[in-house]
């Protein structure tokens, strides 16, 4: 098991290193989420309630994550490196977990800047909303990386990822908005945790079939 986790660490570390070198995903995600907040700020009529703003926060998070996910396997595609990783003797789910951890780290970094920006433009955020964002990120990364790996092998990859990902992100939106706006967020946080556990298990167990024909 320690060998499995050392593989996961090596693969996640590689993705972080690639992003530090290329710097093409994080800046794009940051710019996108900041632009989205500015557009929402001017698009919403004055006096629009806090609830509408919270709803838009979740829209921005999902689409920012989608931007990062669409780049998740670009480096592997360029040189067919995925073949090299698949041939390695490590469990193939380590490829998924390493990538999901790296994408989670990028998304969390973007949100570290985006959430204060949201508070500046719209309203303050409570701990429950932040907890919901963290739980949502786990689910988004688990499902998104799985689907990104699935779509990377297809010709219509740019179209396929959003088409597959957005329907599966609906429960994340439901749970996230629910936790943010209700006075009893516990069940929504529980729903997000359940979504994470269920989909992470499914993706972990079936990733092997995604990366082999």
């Amino acid at each position, binding site marked *: 098991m320690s*060998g499995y986790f*050392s*593989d996961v660490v*090596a*693969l996640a570390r*590689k993705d972080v*290193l*690639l992003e530090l*070198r*290329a710097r093409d995903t994080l800046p794009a995600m940051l710019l996108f989420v900041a632009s989205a907040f500015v557009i929402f700020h001017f698009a919403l009529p004055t006096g629009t309630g806090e609830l509408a703003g919270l709803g838009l926060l979740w829209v921005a998070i999902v689409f920012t994550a989608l931007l990062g996910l669409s780049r998740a396997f670009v*480096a592997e595609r*360029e*040189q*067919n*490196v995925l*073949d*090299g*990783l*698949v*041939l*390695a*003797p*490590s469990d193939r789910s380590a490829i998924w977990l390493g990538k999901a951890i790296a994408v989670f780290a990028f998304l969390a970094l973007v949100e570290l800047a985006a959430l204060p920006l949201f508070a500046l433009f719209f309203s303050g955020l409570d701990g429950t909303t932040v907890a919901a964002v963290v739980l949502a990120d786990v689910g988004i990364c688990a499902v998104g990386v799985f689907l990104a790996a699935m779509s990377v092998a297809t010709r219509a990859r740019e179209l396929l990822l959003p088409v597959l990902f957005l329907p599966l992100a609906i429960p994340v939106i439901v749970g996230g908005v629910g936790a943010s706006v209700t006075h009893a967020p516990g069940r929504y946080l529980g729903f997000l945790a359940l979504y994470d556990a269920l989909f992470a298990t499914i993706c972990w167990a079936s990733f092997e079939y995604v990366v*082999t*024909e």
Partner: protein
Amino acid sequence: MIRARGLAKRYGAKRIFDGLDLDVERGGFVVVTGPNGSGKTTLLRLVAGLVLPSAGELEVGIDRGQLGFLAHEALVYRELTALENLDLYGRLYRVPERRERIGMLLERFDLWDARNERTGSFSRGMLQRLALCRTFLHEPTLLLLDEPFSALDTEGAELLERELAARRGAATFLVATHDAKRLAPLATGSLAFA
């Protein structure tokens, strides 16, 4: 080591090959020849387990970790250095004394001076040398080599010939090439696609 019976591969309506029988003994050195698009690369990818056969049986008598696969592409990250790429593969393959082994291969394939350069700046020949380092890194017992002499200069090609000769008998080889004459002295068998 490799046994195929009635092996077939199709992509949709396109037939790559059909009814292929193949036996490669442990320690054998089989050279696969044929024109472009005849199925040489597909056969290697089938044996590597990267694609599944459309029909027939295929048995490969080793674990995945004992397989060395040299593809058309180098299978390395362009934004990582040669050293970082080999270190990643060394970790995934649990290569003992990884750093020493990587250093030795980089020196042998004349890439030591370029070890800290990103592979995106490498020439095609340097990438092929790096790909050979990656392929030999974990001392595989089955080597699947797709056009191993591609892009190598005279010195690189001679070096590779010596490497293959040194491993002949100790490892099993399935080599796709357009230059069968070069490998004729090493070959124990051949397979020609029409």
